[in-house]
Every structure is written in structure tokens, then in C-alpha cells.
């Protein structure tokens, strides 16, 4: 993908590093949050916005926004399929084609295709999974979250 190629060459200055590491949570809930971040970092609002735009363009930042606790809004589940290796690309493309699917990975296991599906409610979610099962002819194993043990404090980045 063009995007990830660009980011391999991504060079991070100290402003970028601090934006990435220090603001994964507690974005100021004030009318001009980027100006407030800028004040904390001793720079201008314009510089913060430009850096965030560049990080987003390079693919290092997916968005500045909210991470929702699973299941508090709508319905979602992790799902997995054991896809014959020769069909993996085809089935992965089929799965990724759904708006309801937001993560889709190949993992090293006999059960090799893992994705997260999200919909407005359980009925729509079930429809999506059934549809994938029917179109691919491969069973879909639904593994919904039952209990969340993780407290999301963001992820501490270690620079090499």
C-alpha cells in the first residue's frame, strides 16, 4: 500500500513524538483543544494541526478521536475462519468488502483469518456473519467479548 510505504521513511521530530505519545488520551475538552496542546508543548496551534495532518497522511495516526468501549454502542464481535491457504486472498477481500468489518488480519494458525465486525445491533451483525459464511462457504466462528479486563491508558511508544 502506498500509505505504509511512505511511513517507512517517516521521520519524527520531537513535536511529532510528543503528539503521538502524550496525547493518546485526555484530549482537552475545551473549545480549542489543539491550541491548548500547543501551549503545553510550547508551539503554535498551526504547528500542531500541521503535524497531526502530516502524521495522518503518513498513516502513523489513524485519527484524533474517541476509542469506544466495545458493546456500549451498537454490537460487535471478533470472528475467525479457517480458510484454505489458496483461497485466503479471495476470502479476505470478500470479508474486507463489508462496511461492517473494521479490522481484518491474517494470523499464523490453522484458523487464519481474524476480523472484527460491528453493526448497529445484533440482528444486523448476525446478518453480516451469515452472509460471509454463505458467500465464502466457510464457517465463521463468532467470539464476542464477554468481559473486558483492560484499562486503556494508551500505549507507551518506545523510540529506537
Amino acid at each position, binding site marked *: 500500500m502506498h500509505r*505504509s510505504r511512505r*511511513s517507512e521513511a*517517516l521521520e519524527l521530530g520531537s513535536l511529532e513524538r510528543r*503528539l503521538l505519545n502524550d*496525547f*493518546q*488520551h485526555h*484530549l482537552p*475538552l475545551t*473549545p*480549542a483543544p*489543539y*491550541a491548548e496542546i500547543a501551549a503545553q508543548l510550547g508551539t503554535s496551534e498551526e504547528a500542531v*494541526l500541521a503535524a*497531526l495532518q502530516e502524521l*495522518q497522511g503518513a*498513516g*502513523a*495516526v*489513524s*485519527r*484524533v*478521536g474517541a*476509542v*469506544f*468501549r466495545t*458493546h*456500549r*454502542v*451498537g454490537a460487535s*464481535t*471478533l470472528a475467525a475462519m479457517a480458510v484454505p491457504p489458496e483461497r485466503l486472498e479471495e476470502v479476505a*477481500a470478500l*470479508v*474486507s468488502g463489508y*462496511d*461492517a468489518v473494521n*479490522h*481484518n*488480519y*491474517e*494470523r*499464523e494458525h490453522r*484458523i487464519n483469518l481474524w*476480523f472484527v465486525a460491528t453493526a*448497529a445491533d*445484533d440482528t*444486523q*451483525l448476525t446478518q453480516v456473519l451469515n452472509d460471509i*459464511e454463505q458467500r465464502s462457504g466457510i464457517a465463521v466462528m*463468532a*467470539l*464476542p467479548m*464477554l*468481559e473486558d*479486563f*483492560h484499562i486503556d491508558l*494508551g*500505549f*507507551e511508544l518506545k523510540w529506537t
Partner: protein
Amino acid sequence: MDMNALPRMHAENITDADRRLVTAIQHGLPLVSHPYAALGAQCGLSEEEVITRLTALLANGTIKRLGVVVRHRELGYRANAMVVWDIPDERVSELGHCIGRFEFVTLCYRRPRRLPAWPYNLFCMIHGQDRDAVLERVQQIEQHCQIAEVPHEVLFSRRRFKQRGAIYAPVQHGITV
């Protein structure tokens, strides 16, 4: 496919306005001087209402965090593994909390077993700069939580076919990325 275990919606405390706000914010905050005002304009709320509601959604835990959402792989964290354990049901809560506390664990969930194909009931996600770094972290967890003898598997990711924020809006609203 057993869908009985699908979770129920916890929508009791979510108002219509919240729902519109959630729909508007799922692609991220606009990178403009007054993002909450811009967001409000998209969903018919004032800047003040947006800030008040986001504050409430954070306080009641609907939103886990508000901030910069990084993509690990692009930042040099090339290895990520889903580590799964088959933990006796009566110990899963205790050990889940033990594992979920590590700063390098980005998710830690209990999920149903799907026997016989899938015996594992605790799932966590670990990112690292390479495979060895991830395996070292798995060992660290095993030692600290004393679960070296618990059956587990490490499923490294190979290819990423798709990654973006979740979209909760009904399909008929036509939201796409």
C-alpha cells in the same frame, strides 16, 4: 455458527443526541481550530453540548479514551500477536486483571470457547518491535501471573487486510470510509 453468545446492546443510557454524536465522531475529530464546534455542526449540537456529552460519555465509560489513535505498525511496531489462554473459568477474572494491567497489553478480553475447535477463553493483544520482543513480553506475563503451565497459543499477525475505526451506524445511513 453459534450466535447465542452475542452480547446485548447497552443502549439504555444513550440518547438520540449521543447516537448522532457517536456517528459524527467515529471518523475522528476534524483537524481544525474548533473541532467540537465543527463536530456539532455535523450532528445538530452546539459546541457546548458536544463538550458536555463527550465529558459524560467518558465519565460513564462509553468512551474509553479521547485522543490521538496511533497505528502501531507504521510506527515501527511490526510484530503483533494475539495471545490466547485456556484458563479455568473460576480463575479467568483474576488472571484477566493480572494480564490486562501490563502497559504493553492493548486488549484483554474474556471470550467464549468454541469446542472442540477453539478451547481458549482469554485473549490479549501484544505489540512489539519484532517477534522476539513480543515473545519476551509473553514470558514476562507468564512469570508475573504464574500461568506458565496454562495452555496457550501465540498467533502472530501476518498480513493486515483492513484496519480502521469501527462504524456503528446502520447500513441504510450509507456511511462508508
